[in-house]
């Protein structure tokens, strides 16, 4: 594997930077272009890069497929859970005004939680797609 050494060194520098950038895009989506979808895809791109350079077995050790399946469901349930929470507090489905004292704070909290749910689901599903496609044995 010595002929891949340039790739390995550069990947070790860049992967944490990509992950931090994904978190920045996720939480700064209120003030600049960004949000849950973009952040989820960028985060999964960091892990796909790790899988391309270091091998599929290594990336499946870092994030096992069972954990990803659970996380994908957790993201959707977080989103729907916020909706049901507002119904339990007496309003309509996904009516964020009721989540805090003032309406705008409730909206902020609701949008934050909802975008987090979207980001978690998108990141786990993109990584699961990569695992499924690349892990398929070629029998020719």
């Amino acid at each position, binding site marked *: 594997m010595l002929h891949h050494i340039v790739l390995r060194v550069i990947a070790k520098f860049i992967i944490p930077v990509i992950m931090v950038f994904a978190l920045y895009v996720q939480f700064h989506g209120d003030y600049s*272009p960004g*949000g849950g979808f*973009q952040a989820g895809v960028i985060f999964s*791109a960091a892990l796909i890069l790790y899988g391309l350079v270091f091998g599929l077995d290594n990336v499946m050790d870092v994030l096992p497929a069972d954990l990803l399946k659970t996380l994908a469901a957790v993201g959707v349930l977080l989103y729907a859970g916020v909706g049901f929470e507002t119904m339990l507090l007496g309003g309509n489905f996904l009516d*964020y005004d009721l989540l805090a004292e003032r309406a705008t704070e409730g909206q*902020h909290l609701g949008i934050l939680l909802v975008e987090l749910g979207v980001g978690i689901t998108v990141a786990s599903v993109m990584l699961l797609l990569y695992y499924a496609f690349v892990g*398929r044995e070629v029998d020719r």
Partner: protein
Amino acid sequence: MIEVAIDVILLAFMAVVALAVVRMHDLFAVAMLFAVFSLLSAGVFTVMDAADVAFTEAAVGAGVSTILMLATLTKTGREERHIRSAVRPVPLVVVFTTGALLIFGTSDLPRLGDAEAPVHTHVAPRYLEQSEEEIGIPNVVTSVLASYRGYDTLGETTVIFTAGVAVLALLGLRRRRRTARTEDDH
């Protein structure tokens, strides 16, 4: 004026790339042109003031879609079978007729960028004006996506989840071998 020039140049590049995809037989090159097409469209979206859309198109189209297409090509083979006559008459006639009808149909749309067009005067000003006091975050696209039209975004998240479930049902995951992992043939 410079924006119009950039816009026309990028769209011309996209047309050239699309025509190259028609003509090429090496599918690896077609996958690379796929990524180039998606990146050029992200450029067009940026020139047309759609920053969120450009971000998503660049990440999704030039990133994840290209990876999946290359992974498919490792399983299905790299060459498209050559056909003798490259231009078929019947599809060409169908495509020309559809294109002519569409251009005729869009010929009485309002001029590009017209601020008095009907699409800009009904719902959009209400969102742009009321978003500051009702929601209070500067990014109007996020506030429309997550709050005003939040129910659609829930449906979209469910679609992504369903696509993940469908691909897992079709392809499955590799069972990790519990035996020796010392020889790694990657």
